[in-house]
C-alpha cells in the first residue's frame, strides 16, 4: 500500500534517512523503532511531502514523490506530530471539521467529523478552545482531525511520549480501535518497546537513518543488533 524505495534525505552532511526501503501492507499496524535522532520523524516528513528527497515513495501504486503536503493528505495519508500541533485559535470541533473539509477527497461530511470527535473521546471538550486541552487531549485531537480526512493510512509519531500509565493504556486502545474497528492501516513510531510490541507487527528498526532489521515483535526483541543499539542504552522496554 505504501512503498518507500531507496529514499535518502541529507541535512548538510548528515544523512537523516539513508537509503531506506520498506513496504507497508493494507490493514497492518506497522511499527517504526529506533533511538533518538535515528531519523524516524524525518521519515514521516518525507512521506508527507515536507521535504524533497532522493528515491521514490509510492502509495496505492501511485508515485507521490514531490507532491505537496496538502495533496498527499487528500490522497489518504494523514499524520500526527511528535510535538503536539494544535490550532490555538480554533475550537476542538473547528479543528476536526477543518480536517473533514480540506483533507477528505469526497464531499464534506459533518456527521463523520462528529463521529470522530466522539471516537477520540472529545465530546465534552467539543466547543472548547484547543489550548485548554491537556497533553492527552491534544494528542487525541490531532488523531481526530487526522481521522476526519478519511485517511487510508494514519501515521502517528510517538503518541505515548509524556503520558502516564493510564493514559498510555487509553491511547493504545484508541490506536487499536482505529486499526481494528475502522479498518485503517496505521504506522506508529514509538520509543516505548513494550507498547510497540503490543500494537505493531511488523516492526522496522532504524539507526542513523538506515534499517537494522524488520520483523515480528519476537524477532526484533531478540535481535542482538537491536538490543545493542536500541534496548541496550535505553531502559524503556
Amino acid at each position, binding site marked *: 500500500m505504501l512503498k518507500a524505495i531507496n529514499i535518502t534525505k541529507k541535512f548538510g552532511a548528515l544523512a537523516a534517512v539513508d537509503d531506506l526501503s520498506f513496504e507497508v501492507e493494507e490493514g497492518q499496524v506497522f511499527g517504526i523503532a529506533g533511538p533518538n535522532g535515528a531519523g524516524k520523524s524525518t521519515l514521516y516528513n518525507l512521506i508527507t511531502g515536507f521535504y524533497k528527497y532522493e528515491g521514490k515513495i509510492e502509495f496505492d501504486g501511485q508515485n507521490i514523490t514531490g507532491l505537496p503536503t496538502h495533496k498527499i493528505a487528500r490522497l489518504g495519508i494523514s499524520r500526527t506530530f511528535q510535538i503536539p500541533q494544535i490550532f490555538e485559535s480554533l475550537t476542538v470541533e473547528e479543528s476536526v471539521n477543518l480536517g473533514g*473539509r480540506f483533507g477528505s477527497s469526497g464531499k464534506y461530511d459533518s456527521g463523520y467529523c462528529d463521529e470522530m470527535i466522539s471516537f477520540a473521546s472529545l465530546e465534552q471538550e467539543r466547543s472548547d478552545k484547543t489550548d485548554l486541552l491537556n497533553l492527552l487531549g491534544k494528542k487525541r485531537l490531532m488523531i481526530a482531525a487526522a481521522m476526519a480526512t478519511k485517511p487510508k493510512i494514519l501515521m502517528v509519531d510517538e503518541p505515548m511520549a509524556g503520558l502516564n500509565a493510564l493514559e498510555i493504556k487509553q491511547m493504545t486502545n484508541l490506536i487499536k480501535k482505529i486499526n481494528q474497528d475502522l479498518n485503517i492501516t496505521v504506522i506508529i513510531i514509538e520509543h516505548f518497546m513494550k507498547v510497540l510490541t503490543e500494537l505493531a507487527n511488523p516492526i522496522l528498526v532504524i539507526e542513523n537513518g538506515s534499517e537494522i532489521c524488520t520483523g515480528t515483535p519476537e524477532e526484533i526483541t531478540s535481535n542482538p543488533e537491536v538490543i545493542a543499539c536500541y534496548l541496550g542504552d535505553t531502559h524503556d522496554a
Partner: protein
Amino acid sequence: MNAKSMVTILAVTYGFLGILPLFLGDSSIYMRILTMILIWSVVASCWDLIMGYAGIFSFGQVAFYVIGAYSSAILSVSLNVTPIVSIFMAGTITAIIGVIIGLPCLKLAGPYIALVTFAFQLALEPFLKGPLGKAIGSGGSRGIISVPPIHIFGMDFSSSELVPYFYLTLVLTLICSAVIVVILKSHWGTAFLALKDSEDFAASLGVSAFKYKLLVFAVTSFITGLFGALYVHYVGILSTRMLSMEVFTVLLIMIVVGGIGQYPGVVLGAVVTVTMNELLRPMGIYRLLIMGGMVVVIVLLLPDGVTGLIRKFSVFRMTKKRTEQLKHRNETHESSP
C-alpha cells in the same frame, strides 16, 4: 467572536456613524472626520485580516492603498475611464500586485515578510517620482491634480459634496465589512487561522498554504486598493505624500487599540484613533508622542485592545467560567495517578 456578535458590533458602530451626518451634516470639518473614520476603518480591517488572522506580517498595506489611488487617478485622468468603473479596476490592479508581492512571502518567515513588504512601500515613492512613474502618468513629484469626482445617478461625489460622498463611502464600507465577516466565518477564515497557528499541521490536513495565503493577499489588497481609489476621487489631488510614515503609524495604532485579530475591534479602534488624532491636533508635535504613549499603555494593559476590555465585562463571562471549570478539571485529572 461569533458571527452574530461581529455583525452586532459592526451594525451599531456603522449605524451610529451613519446617523451622525443628520446632526453634523453642515460642518465640513466633522464630515471630513467621519468620512476618514470610514475609510481608515476598512483599510485597517484589511490589515487586521492579513496580519491578525492569517498571521502574515505584511507591512505593505499603505503601499496597496496608494497603488489603488494612483491606479484609479491615472485611469480616469489619462485614459478617461469613468471613476465608478476605475475604482474597481484599481482594486483589481492592486489585488494582482498584492498577489505578486505575496508570492515571495510564501517561503519567508514572519519578520522577513515584514521587511520585504515594507521595502516595497519604501521603493514605491522613488518609483512614482521617477521616470518610470512619469511614463505611466504618475505626474512625478508634482503628483496628479484635478482627479475627477465619482459621478453616478447624475450626482457628483467629492469633497464639495461631503454628505453624499460620506453615504457612498458608507455603502462600500458596509459591503466590504460584510465580505470580511463572511470570509472570516467561512472555511477560508478557519484555514487562515489554522495556517497561522500551525502551517505544518494545517497542510497535513489538506489545507493548501499556497492558495490561502495568496487569497488573503488578493482580497485584502483588492479592498485596500478600492478604498485608496475611493479616497483619491474625493480629495481630487494625489502625490507620494500619501506614503507617509504617519499614515502607517496611525493605521497600526487603530489595530492595536482595537485588538490584533479581534475583528471588528479594529473598527472601534479606527473610531477611537481618528477621533483622538483630531482632538490632539492642537498639541502640535506632541500629538504623535501622546498617541505613542497610548499604544504602549494599551499593549501592556490590554493586549486584546478594546475588544478585550468589552469581553472582560460582558458576553464572554460565560466562556471564562467554562475556562476555569476546565482548568480545574485538568488539574484534578493531572494530579490523579
